[in-house]
């Protein structure tokens, strides 16, 4: 077998590695579809339980719909969150991720994007159904969907930080929710404020802009925090 002298080997483009991580993780996820479906089914069940619990009066439901959908979405996101790094930690793929010839932040960003694609996109797809079940007035559907679209990257990014810190603990699950949910309270407040503003006939631009800012900030800065967390965890 002949091989070129490794010194002269061309460095692999970061984009190539980025794409490969996304491709592999999507493949792995497609082999464990039940893991993907469980949070979604949980979300659907919680939403359908609410009309039974608080009574089917359309005005009450309509008023609390946005809050209920967001709280349920947060809780269901907590269910599958550990998946970001847990399996990789167990089988050693995480170690290999840290040994790739690209900045760790870059690989971490790929993991965050995959997580968003696998958890948030399905929620976005069924949001109209959830809004319908809770009788949210139709003029607020668009804004609710928008808050979920720009708010869910925050869940994936902040979640990755939490998981990076707790992945090496055996019972990290409860700690993770305890760690993350308080951090996500502002997101919840602004998301429901945006929907309420729309329902009151006021422009939701203010809260939406704030969520957007949080989102950009968390997605760009989280990889650095995740890297530090993973350094500790793989020790």
């Amino acid at each position, binding site marked *: 077998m002949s091989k070129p*002298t490794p010194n002269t080997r061309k460095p*692999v483009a970061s984009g190539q*590695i980025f794409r490969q*991580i996304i491709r592999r993780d999507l493949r792995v996820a497609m082999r464990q579809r039940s893991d993907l479906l469980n949070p979604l089914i949980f979300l659907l069940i919680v939403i359908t339980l609410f009309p039974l619990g608080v009574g089917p009066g359309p005005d009450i439901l309509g008023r609390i719909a946005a809050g209920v959908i967001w709280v349920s979405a947060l809780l269901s996101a907590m269910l599958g969150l550990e998946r970001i790094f847990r399996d990789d930690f167990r*089988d*050693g793929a995480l170690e290999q991720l840290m040994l790739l010839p690209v900045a760790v932040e870059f690989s971490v960003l790929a993991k965050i994007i995959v997580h968003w694609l696998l958890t948030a996109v399905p929620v976005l797809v069924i949001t109209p159904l959830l809004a319908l079940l809770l009788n949210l007035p139709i003029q607020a559907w668009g804004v609710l969907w928008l808050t979920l679209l720009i708010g869910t990257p925050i869940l994936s990014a902040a979640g990755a930080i939490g998981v990076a810190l707790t992945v090496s603990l055996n019972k990290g699950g409860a700690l993770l929710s305890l760690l993350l949910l308080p951090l996500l309270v502002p997101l919840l407040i602004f998301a429901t404020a945006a929907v309420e503003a729309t329902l009151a006939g006021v422009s939701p631009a203010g809260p939406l802009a704030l969520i957007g800012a949080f989102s950009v900030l968390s997605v760009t800065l989280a990889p650095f925090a995740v890297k530090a967390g993973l350094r500790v965890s793989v*020790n």
Partner: protein
Amino acid sequence: MLLQGRELQSVRGERVLFSNINLDVASGQLWQIEGPNGAGKSSLLRILAGLLPAQQGDVLFQGEEIQQCRERYYHDLLFIGHKSGIKPELTAIENLEFYAAVEGHEFSTPPYELLAQVGLVGLEDIPAQRLSAGQQRRIALARLWFSQTRLWILDEPFTALDVDGIAMLHDRFQVHLAQGGAIILTSHQDLQSMSYPVNRLQLRYQH
């Protein structure tokens, strides 16, 4: 000098695992780290790979601190630890395709020949989790056959392998060393009877 460890010390909890370890790995050399369980062999390998910070000392790749030349170092390093890094949901081919692609090496056709070389014929399309421990180990080690990295750090590479697997790995080591590669490994196997020279580093259990 490919890789150098300078006065390395590792402390786990309250216990000093080892201190003042010096290691010079040149191309064409195989280093075997020996020592009883708990002496810090894996820790030493992880320090050399940059996965674990040393309490004291430096690791130099071609004379440069590995944290300073991280990407250049990892471009030339293949590390296989206790956990193999093989995704159990994916098949052998899918796993290997990933590791080849991140090294910038795309298989134009599925690497059946490679799998045949490591004794995994007929198991190409089975998810790795349904294979035995030894077979999973073989998938991870198959990376050695296409990897173009010069430095290999292998933690107990012979674990779970059968006699044929061990012989196959020795042959691969020999080719790699002849091509100017270097290998650092831990093993309880006696490598003295091998056809290549073995440098040994002995770690002692410290109380």
